[in-house]
């Protein structure tokens, strides 16, 4: 059963999915500087996955990207987020122990309106990556499970 969509949808998807994924990773990476963050960037990347899955169906996956792998990655993201939250438990839960420490992402930002420093934010960039990984793989695994389940139901 070939559950692809029309040639218009497939062509537009081929053009736009790369740009969408790059923009989503940009939003995650610059989450502590520009509007957006882990959740928003993960949702953008997941929308690119959704576009691919809806346009081409599950035939293009070829078993390489099943929802077991995505589910594992989602749990890795959740545990990384929780671990980063527990890392500051000496002060308080969710305390930012890397900010202004001089370590990685530990730079200070000048006060007032400015363009921002990428090497700043403490644990915020790591949490952005953890939540972004969690959101993108979680939503992609929901869609893959729905598509595979519906296809198997249709094949009965």
């Amino acid at each position, binding site marked *: 059963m070939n559950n692809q969509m029309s040639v218009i949808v497939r062509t537009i998807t081929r053009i736009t999915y790369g740009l969408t994924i790059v923009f989503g990773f940009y939003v995650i990476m610059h989450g*502590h500087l520009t509007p*957006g963050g882990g959740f928003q960037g993960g949702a953008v990347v997941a929308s690119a996955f959704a576009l691919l899955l809806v346009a081409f169906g599950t035939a293009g996956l070829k078993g390489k990207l099943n929802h077991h792998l995505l589910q594992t990655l989602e749990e890795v993201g959740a545990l990384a987020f929780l671990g980063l*939250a527990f890392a500051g438990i000496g002060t308080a839960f969710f305390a930012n122990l890397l900010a202004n420490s001089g370590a990685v992402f530990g730079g200070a930002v000048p006060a007032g309106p400015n363009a921002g420093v990428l090497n700043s*934010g*403490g644990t*915020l960039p790591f949490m952005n990556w953890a939540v972004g990984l969690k959101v993108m793989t979680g939503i992609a695994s929901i869609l893959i499970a729905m598509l595979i389940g519906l296809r198997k139901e249709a094949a009965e």
Partner: protein
Amino acid sequence: MKRAVLAAVFLFVAAFLLLAAAQMRPFGSPASALMDDYFLANAQAEVAANNVVTAVVFDYRGFDTLGEATVLFAAVVGVLAVFRKLREDER
């Protein structure tokens, strides 16, 4: 009868919404700006992040984000549980 009840409910809700809209504050003047002023003044020095919204979401109000992550995890587990049942029935 059903149509009259629906019209009554619609008018009731619309009246309350219009009442709320009439009492709305002007844009950009919150009821209490205490926490807003604190976040805007101290987020750059304390969290070293220019995006104050991310500083609030991931640092000052981290528990909210933890709850949101839990909701997403529960949604994923629920959907996978439903469709896994479907696949095992098929075998």
